[in-house]
């Protein structure tokens, strides 16, 4: 009797909590079953079966909702690389290098996908090592429709795997902005392969992987990184700077004018990046719940505020707000809000965006000119700088009310009174900087020895489209 009543209570409460819409109809029948003589074991068993069925249905309904959003998000993140980033970068280079830079992004969609399937996913998300995963999922062994409860209990592991893959695809592609207009295609392929294994995979595991050193939930130095401020943007941005310094300037830089050949392409690319970023950040909730909404709103606000910040700074300096400035600002804001998206409320998101817009504007215009490095398309100035400022500000503005990641009632960021989190963020930032720096230098040396890294001066002047790929972006005579 007691058991049956308990079951009934559970049944009713489950209906009320989990399936609010259809709850009314079945709920009206439950009092009848409760008031009927429920002592018989038949009735109890029947109820248990029904309860189990209902449990399954509730789980299936949640999984369907979450999975729909996560598959959409995965597609959105892929769209960020191609065509988003490819167009954004493609428009910024000179006409003779358009296809080459687009191809460098597109090649990652092929190359990294293959590496991910073979062992990348396993090394990033298998096992519970401190620094790197294991080989339990090589060739995607054991990755099926059953969820991986370590990461996302409500979606098929296949979805989680393919979603994370899209991040691994875009991260190396970001680096090509710094090496644009002078990097060999063979060198790109080799460098990116090595970079994926030496820098991306270990850091992805350390920050997001179970047992990872910097994992927010249980790591030694819990670093908050909702969607990849450290793993994606600091690693790619810092590596981009190292590559630009190692490679040297483009022939003719900075005397010869090298204006973007089509800001229209860049404009379309930047807008696609903005839209795709909703999948990047809101998808990082790994579910379609309130946290996704929170991250979605923060993402949008961060981008808008940064576009505003950059434009205003530029207006003050040059007397004009340029289209290139506005779209660059938006991307800088998206970068900066990435680690914070699932931890901050909308107003702090505006503040983060505004700071990032002005900060990245100064990095790209002042700091770059001061040191004279040729970060051709400002991969460091936007992703390295924006990722760093965003990661630090995450420690300031993160709030338990948005995401109680350290447990119920425990403060998260400085706004909750936990100033120590800013220190943890700093450790995460410094670690990512150092890791990307050292890893990239080693890989550069190896790449230079095997395939070479930079095209000959003659090829650089002729353009990479013809010399690397044997084709032209714009064949005007036809």
């Amino acid at each position: 009797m007691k058991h049956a009543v308990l079951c009934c209570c559970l049944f009713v409460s489950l209906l009320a909590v989990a399936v609010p819409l259809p709850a009314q109809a079945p709920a009206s029948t439950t009092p009848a079953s409760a008031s009927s003589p429920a002592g018989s074991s038949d009735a109890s068993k029947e109820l248990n079966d029904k309860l189990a069925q209902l449990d399954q249905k509730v789980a299936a309904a949640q999984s369907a909702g979450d999975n729909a959003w996560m598959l959409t998000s995965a597609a959105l993140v892929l769209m960020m690389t191609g065509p988003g980033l490819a167009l954004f970068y493609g428009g910024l280079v000179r006409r003779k290098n358009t296809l080459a830079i687009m191809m460098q992004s597109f090649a990652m969609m092929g190359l990294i996908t293959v590496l991910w399937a073979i062992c990348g996913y396993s090394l990033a998300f298998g096992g519970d090592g401190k620094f790197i995963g294991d080989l339990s999922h090589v060739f995607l062994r054991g990755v099926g429709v059953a969820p991986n409860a370590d990461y996302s209990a409500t979606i098929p592991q296949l979805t989680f795997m393919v979603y994370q893959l899209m991040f691994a695809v875009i991260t190396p592609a970001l680096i090509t902005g710094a090496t644009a207009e002078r990097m060999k295609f063979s060198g790109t392929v080799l460098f990116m392969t090595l970079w994926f294994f030496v820098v991306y995979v270990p850091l992805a595991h350390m920050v997001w992987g179970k047992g990872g050193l910097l994992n927010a939930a249980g790591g030694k130095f819990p670093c908050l990184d909702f969607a990849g401020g450290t793993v994606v943007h600091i690693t790619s941005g810092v590596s981009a700077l190292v590559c630009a310094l190692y490679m040297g300037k483009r022939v003719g830089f900075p005397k010869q004018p090298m204006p973007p050949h089509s800001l229209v392409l860049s404009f379309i690319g930047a807008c696609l990046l903005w839209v795709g970023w909703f999948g990047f950040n809101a998808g990082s909730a790994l579910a379609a719940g309130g946290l996704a909404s929170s991250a979605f709103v923060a993402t949008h606000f961060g981008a808008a505020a940064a576009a505003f910040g950059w434009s205003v700074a530029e207006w003050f300096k040059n007397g004009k707000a340029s289209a290139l400035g506005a779209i660059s600002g938006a991307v800088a804001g998206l970068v900066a809000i990435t680690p914070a998206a699932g931890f901050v409320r909308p107003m702090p998101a505006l503040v983060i965006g505004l700071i990032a817009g002005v900060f990245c504007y100064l990095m790209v215009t002042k700091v770059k000119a001061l040191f004279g490095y040729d970060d051709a398309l400002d991969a460091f100035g936007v992703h390295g700088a924006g990722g760093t400022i965003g990661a630090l500000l995450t420690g300031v503005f993160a709030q338990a009310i948005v995401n109680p990641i350290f447990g119920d009632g425990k403060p998260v960021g400085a706004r909750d009174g936990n100033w120590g989190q800013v220190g943890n963020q700093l450790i995460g930032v410094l670690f990512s900087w150092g890791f990307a720096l050292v890893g990239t230098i080693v890989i550069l040396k190896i790449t230079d020895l095997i395939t070479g890294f930079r095209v000959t001066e003659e090829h650089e002047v002729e353009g990479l489209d013809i010399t690397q790929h044997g084709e032209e972006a714009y064949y005007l005579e036809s």
Partner: protein
Amino acid sequence: MMKLEAIIQPSRFESVKDALREAGIEGMTVTEVRGHGRQKGHTEVYRGREYTVDLLPKIKLEMVLPDKLVNTVVDTILKTAKTGKIGDGKIFLSRVEEAIRIRNEERGESAL
């Protein structure tokens, strides 16, 4: 026969073309060109990098005219292409020895 080359402001091109058609001119060759005379260029700024653009876009009209039409055409262009600001362009005239229509090998002014 005279060859007339006129470098004009792109913004004036449509008016010039219409006026020439009204004046009875049937053919012309038009090229988009870049160049500069006394007009200074402008500066463009891309992410803080400043470029001085000193070659400005212009339109070049070329036509070969029978002698009797030269003055009309020059007057028409002067009237319609002028904005009064620096950068309005120039007109060059030169003698042409021969004109040949490819289709039927007509020669001289009747080939124009």
